[in-house]
Structure formats: structure tokens, C-alpha cells
């Protein structure tokens, strides 16, 4: 068609005018919407100087909120990881009826408002719930205490590890594990020395995202925690409490810590994506593992 055509036509949208306009618009909006909130936290946290910031962090209530948040993550994240591995192993290594349904149910927490999750837990373990009266009779406290906070956190993060492992293990198939088993390796041995090395980065990726969400969860935890200062206040709840107390600097100091967590999470995420974990996967999400005839 075109006599003057050189090597390759520029791709769609590569004209300098379009390119520059699109980059300029997205960068501007990105700076206003994403970067500015990040900056404002740092500015507000240090608005009264380093000393006030340090004092706000060192306040016993803030320290106990940090401690509670860390303890919650230390319990919820490993349990969640074990569940994620078990779910991925059963869903990808075996064929059983309703496999697809199980996968969908595992992902439900992603679509549910954290408030709804919190309310749902109230109706299981609260006094007006299913087990509440029974638990109360035995003096076991689940709601408005650490177990409730951990349970609610486990609900909102249930799919995090499984979701990373399932597509990967689906794509890797079953051949390696079958070879190991047929050579006489036990189930655990097969998992530890054959499967685990292949999935470790994806697993770590899921763990990091899970941890960030557990430490930052607000809605679900605020329903089940009871907000007792110095006792059942996680860091995000403590931020709200300080903020509504007009202790703005304290609130932003606490928020700054969680922002650091978010930044570290993103850096770790990028590092793991370079090792092939995460969203750059090519495998479709749910297809049966290919059955290679031998």
C-alpha cells in the first residue's frame, strides 16, 4: 500500500503527541491520587518534629497496639499459609467433585465487605450468636479479645496464599511429584524436596501480601475487637482512636509505621516478581491439569 514504508510502522498510540499526553495525564493523576497521600502521612507525622514523633510511638498504648498487631500476624499468617498450601495441594494434585466450587468458596472473602465479615463473626461467637452462650458458660472469651481479632483477620486473608499457589501448581502439573512418589519418597519428603522448592517464591509472595493485610485490617477487626485501649486495639484501630481524639500527630505517627510496612511490602513484592512470583504468571486460573499420556 505505502511505497515509502520503512522497516516497521510505529505501534498504535506511539505518535509522540499521544504518548506525551497520556504519560503526562496518568503521571499527574497518579501523583495526586497515590503519591500525595503517601507524602502527607510523612509530613503530618513529623510536623511537630522528630521528638514528638518518637514520643507518640513510644506511648504505651501505641506500643501495645503494635505488639497486638504483630502477635495477630504471627498467629494468623502461618495458619493461613498452612491452609493455602493444603488447599493448593488438594485442588491441583487431585481431581474430585466440586473442586471448582471449593475454589470459588475459598475466594469469597475477597468480595465481602470487612464489616459484613465482622458482623458474621459476631453471630457465631457473640452472646447473641450460635456458640456465644456456650462459650460464655465455660468462660471462654473469643470476641473482644485476641482470638476474635485473629479469626476475623484469617477470614479476610483466607485466599491470599492459596491464590498464589493454585495457578502455579496447576501449571507445573503432577509429573514431578508422581516421579518422586514412584521412586519411593514419602508424601512429606515429596512435598519438601520436590514441590516446595518450586513454589517457595510464590508462597513467600502470598505470605507477604497476607501479612500486610492482616496488619492493616480495619473494618472486620473493628467489629470484633471491642476497641479496648491498650488491650484489644490493633494499630489501625489505634489510629482511628487517636484521630478522633484530635491527637492528629499521634495518629499520623502510627499511620507512618503502617505506611513503612506498606512500602516494605511493595519492595518485597517487586523483588519476588523478578523471581517469577505474582501477577506475571501466564497460566489460566482454572483449567484441569493436562493429563500427559505416557
Amino acid at each position, binding site marked *: *500500500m505505502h511505497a515509502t514504508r520503512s522497516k516497521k*510502522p510505529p*505501534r*498504535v*498510540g506511539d505518535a509522540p503527541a499521544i*504518548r506525551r499526553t*497520556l*504519560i503526562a495525564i*496518568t503521571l499527574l493523576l497518579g501523583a*495526586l*491520587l*497515590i*503519591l*500525595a*497521600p*503517601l507524602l*502527607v502521612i510523612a509530613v503530618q507525622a513529623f510536623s511537630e518534629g522528630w521528638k514528638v514523633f518518637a514520643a507518640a510511638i513510644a506511648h504505651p498504648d501505641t506500643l501495645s497496639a503494635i505488639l497486638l498487631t504483630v502477635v495477630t500476624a504471627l498467629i494468623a499468617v502461618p495458619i493461613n499459609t498452612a491452609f493455602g*498450601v*493444603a*488447599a493448593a495441594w*488438594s*485442588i491441583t*494434585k487431585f*481431581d474430585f467433585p466440586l473442586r471448582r466450587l*471449593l475454589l470459588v*468458596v475459598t475466594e469469597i472473602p475477597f*468480595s*465481602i*465487605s*470487612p*464489616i*459484613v465479615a465482622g*458482623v458474621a463473626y*459476631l*453471630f457465631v461467637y*457473640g452472646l*447473641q450468636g*450460635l456458640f456465644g452462650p456456650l462459650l460464655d458458660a465455660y468462660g471462654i472469651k473469643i470476641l473482644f479479645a485476641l482470638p476474635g481479632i485473629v479469626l476475623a483477620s*484469617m477470614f479476610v486473608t483466607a485466599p491470599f496464599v492459596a491464590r498464589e499457589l493454585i495457578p502455579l501448581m496447576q501449571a507445573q502439573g*503432577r509429573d514431578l*511429584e508422581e516421579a518422586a512418589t514412584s521412586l519411593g519418597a514419602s508424601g512429606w519428603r*515429596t*512435598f519438601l524436596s520436590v514441590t516446595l522448592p518450586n513454589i517457595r517464591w510464590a508462597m513467600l509472595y502470598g505470605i507477604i501480601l497476607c501479612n500486610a493485610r492482616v*496488619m*492493616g485490617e*480495619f473494618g472486620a477487626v473493628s467489629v470484633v475487637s471491642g476497641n479496648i485501649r491498650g488491650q484489644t486495639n490493633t494499630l*489501625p*484501630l489505634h*489510629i482511628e482512636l487517636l484521630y478522633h481524639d484530635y491527637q492528629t500527630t499521634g495518629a*499520623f505517627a502510627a*499511620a507512618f509505621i*503502617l505506611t513503612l*510496612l506498606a512500602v516494605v*511490602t511493595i519492595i518485597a*513484592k*517487586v523483588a519476588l516478581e523478578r523471581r517469577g512470583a505474582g*501477577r506475571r504468571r501466564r497460566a489460566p486460573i*482454572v*483449567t484441569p491439569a493436562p*493429563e500427559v499420556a505416557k
Partner: protein
Amino acid sequence: MRRNVLPGLRLSLGVTLFYVGLIVVLPLAALVFKAASLGPADYWAIVSSPRAVATYRVTVLCALAATVFNLFFGLALAWVLTRYRFPGWRFVDALVDLPFALPTAVAGIALTALFSANGWFGAALAPLGIKVAYTPLGIMIAMIFTSLPFIVRTVQPVLEDLDPALEEAAQSLGGSDWTIFRKVILPLLKPALLAGLSLSFARSLGEFGAIIFIAGNKPFETEITALLIFIRLEEYDYQAAAAIASVLLITAFSMLALTNFMQARALRYTARG
């Protein structure tokens, strides 16, 4: 079917079913049970009360507006991040995940600080007569922030895998950039866009932490449904909380079904051979 020699089905499936049952299914079933125990007349009276209906309106309208904004902005970001290379694109690419990594309460107070009357943006917008904090506009901004990564991250991989030959063919037929974008590229992005839209919309409907700080929370004006549930709980009106929560739950399930349907459709085209 081939015989499966792998061990661990009982253990892994047992752990999975126990966890899913205890952590996910049991609480949701308890909530549905509680809401159902109200009886149709009482249930309807609660979920259709004027204050509840006002929260649905605010939540749905703001979520729609935020999702439409994110459709354009998210698509533009995904396009810029896959098609163009400029200094710092890696930084921008990583930054897109910030709304997912940043706790919602932190996002909430940060956005409020920016948009309140004496904040960086609030002070700049005030002379123009635009109020963001404590208005529905603030709710929209919070929803835009928390749901932004969905569309970028669903569209980006598809855009990366797009076969350049398709565009070249269209170019050789004399199509303009805009025509090729509309007639060739956009249809290929549609499944991913729809899935991203539905995730983004569902997230906006359920968002709580980021919104309550910036919303002002005035009944009938800037009160979202999730907050009304919370208020009913604080009033010890557990039945009303259960009923309104069940409305959000039903909406979430409908959105989930829609997303899965669209993903299945998307796979029909992408998972070949």
C-alpha cells in the same frame, strides 16, 4: 481417568474443608441464619427503611462513579505502563499497588488530611467552591483510591500479551490509531476490563476504613451502608445489623457470580490448546 498415586488427599482436603468451613462458611451461614430468623415482614421493614435505602443510594452511586473513573484512569495507566518506557516507569508500576498495600485506615486519614478545608488539595479547591471532604465527592475519592489497582492489574497482563501482528494487520489496512484501538484492541481487552470493573465495583461497595474518615457520615447524605451496619451494632440492634449486612452479602455474591461468569468467558478465548 488415570489412577492418582500422589499421597495426601485426605490430609490436605481435610485441612482445607475444615478451614474453609470454620473460617469462611460458618460465619456467613450464621449471618444468613440470623437475618432469616427475622421473618419476611420485619426483614423487609429494616432493609427498606428510608435511612437504609439512602445508604444504598449513596454507596451505589459513589461506587459507580468511582468505577467509571477507574475504568478510564486504570486503562490509561495500564496502557502507559505496558506501551511506553519513560524514566521512572518501574517506580510508577510499583506505586500502583500502594492502595492494596496501604491499610485502609491510613488511606482514610491521609485523604482526609489532603482534602479537608485546610489541606493541600482542599485549600486549593475551596476558592473554586468545590468541597470534597465530608461530601459524597470524598466518598468517591476514597473508593477511587482503594479500588484503583484492580483494573490496572487485570488489564495489564492482557495488554502485554497482545499480538503486535493484529495491530500491524489493521495498520496495513489503513486504520487510524483510534479506529484500531476501538475495533481491534478494545474488544480483546473487554473480558479483562469487565472482570476488573466488577472487582473494583465490589470493593467500592464494601469499603469501610478509607471512607468513614472522609465521608462526614451524615445520615441520608454521606452515610454508607457498611457504616449503618456498624452504627446498628453500636446501638445493640443486632437484627437490623444482620439484615442490612445480608443485603451487602447478597450483593457481593451476585458480583462474585458475575465475575466468575466473566472469567470463564474470558478463558474461553485465552486458554487455547
